């Protein structure tokens, strides 16, 4: 089924409920779906579990969701940055839970969720604090840690363009977590710079096939 084309960002995120697990694309600000995050804040959903590489920068996007205490738990690899003051404050006051995951394990746990994999043994993190309490195994002399998939209710991602079937192309390093997050959520919501008719994207260059995409919204004035 072709995806729904929402008129506004607010319309696009309207199905996200309290307590939802939400994947948010982006690495720093590259690929961060800023307008969808702003709309999520405005729609008032709370008690969220958010999965992102970081825990918000400065006073925009995910940082504001955390500032307004809409986020119960963050699953990320790198929360602490020079401008992560809203997360830092919430964390130090015990108002947000943090699950710290090595970046490659984070990506692979999302990939596993989208690919129907029940878990995988990874060498990353073996013998470290982040493997404590997890099952380990030695295979051919190498130590591995069992990691499990991260499934979500919704994914908010940003792409350069979509066609009306939801096929997506991205731009440069703004691609980052978008393609794997698109596969791992029950509802994948994408903000794009442009929506083109079916046939407007060469099938050979499609990065995310439309099967993974549920809702598209065009945000004017996005990418250069």
């Amino acid at each position, binding site marked *: 089924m072709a995806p729904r084309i929402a008129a506004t960002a607010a319309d696009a995120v309207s199905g996200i409920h309290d307590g939802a697990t939400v994947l948010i694309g982006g690495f720093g600000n590259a690929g961060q779906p800023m307008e969808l995050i702003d709309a999520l804040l405005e729609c008032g959903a709370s008690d969220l579990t958010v999965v992102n590489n970081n825990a918000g920068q400065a006073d925009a996007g995910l940082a504001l969701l955390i500032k307004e205490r809409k986020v119960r738990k963050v699953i990320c690899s790198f929360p602490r940055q020079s401008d992560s003051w809203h997360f830092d404050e919430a964390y130090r006051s015990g108002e947000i839970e943090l699950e710290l995951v090595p970046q490659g394990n984070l990506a692979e746990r999302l990939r596993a969720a989208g690919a129907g994999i029940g878990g995988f043994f990874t060498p990353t993190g073996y*013998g470290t604090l982040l493997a404590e309490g997890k099952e380990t195994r030695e295979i051919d002399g190498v130590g591995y840690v069992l990691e499990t998939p991260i499934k979500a209710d919704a994914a908010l991602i940003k792409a350069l363009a979509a066609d009306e079937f939801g096929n997506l192309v*991205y731009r440069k390093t703004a691609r980052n977590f978008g393609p794997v997050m698109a596969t791992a959520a029950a509802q994948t919501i994408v903000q794009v710079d442009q929506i083109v008719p079916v046939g407007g994207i060469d099938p050979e260059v499609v990065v995310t096939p439309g099967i993974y995409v549920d809702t598209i919204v065009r945000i004017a004035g996005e990418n250069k």
Partner: protein
Amino acid sequence: MSYSYTAAALTRDEMADLVARDIPAGAFVNLGIGQPTNVSNYLTADQGVTLHTENGMLGMGPVATGEDIDGDLINAGKIPVTELPGASYFHHADSFAMMRGGHLDVCVLGAFQVSRTGDLANWHTGAPGAIPAVGGAMDLAIGAKSTWVMMGLFTKTGESKLVETLGYPVTGLGCVSRVYTESAVFLLEDGTVTVRSTHGIGFDDLAARLPVELRKA
């Protein structure tokens, strides 16, 4: 390679130059945030080295300036960079699969400490109240065919950062094979630490200051 000595300690730029010259021609390389990033300034075009950045790119070029700055084209330190001819983009799971799968030849990282057996500590001081952040450190430590460290050899209070066992939380076990410092270059293999060169300090004086047994190359 036999042991060598220079009268002066290496500057940070000299360390970066030395690491760059040791990277094999045609290698695929990831340079960590901080001192290792400086290595890219000393790689020559003849070397044909391809730089990987874990946020999804091979063929990364120099830092972008002026009109070349593009918020969609950044490195792992979130600094705007450029792309070189032949560059490619890929998503995060592919990027780390590339690393974890042993396809990168060399990864150069900073460190708090390295142990005699190549254990690496560089992600968390373990200090009370510190907010932990790991990023790609644990993936980078164990992913490449060779993991090299660049660091100062001594702490501000003069203690060796090359140690018998780590005093900080582990990033990766047995993963480091070389350590470049201002005072010496160390090769780590099967629990043996070989000193390839010393700088501004003789071998015997160095051996007296370090808590691990050293062998001269």
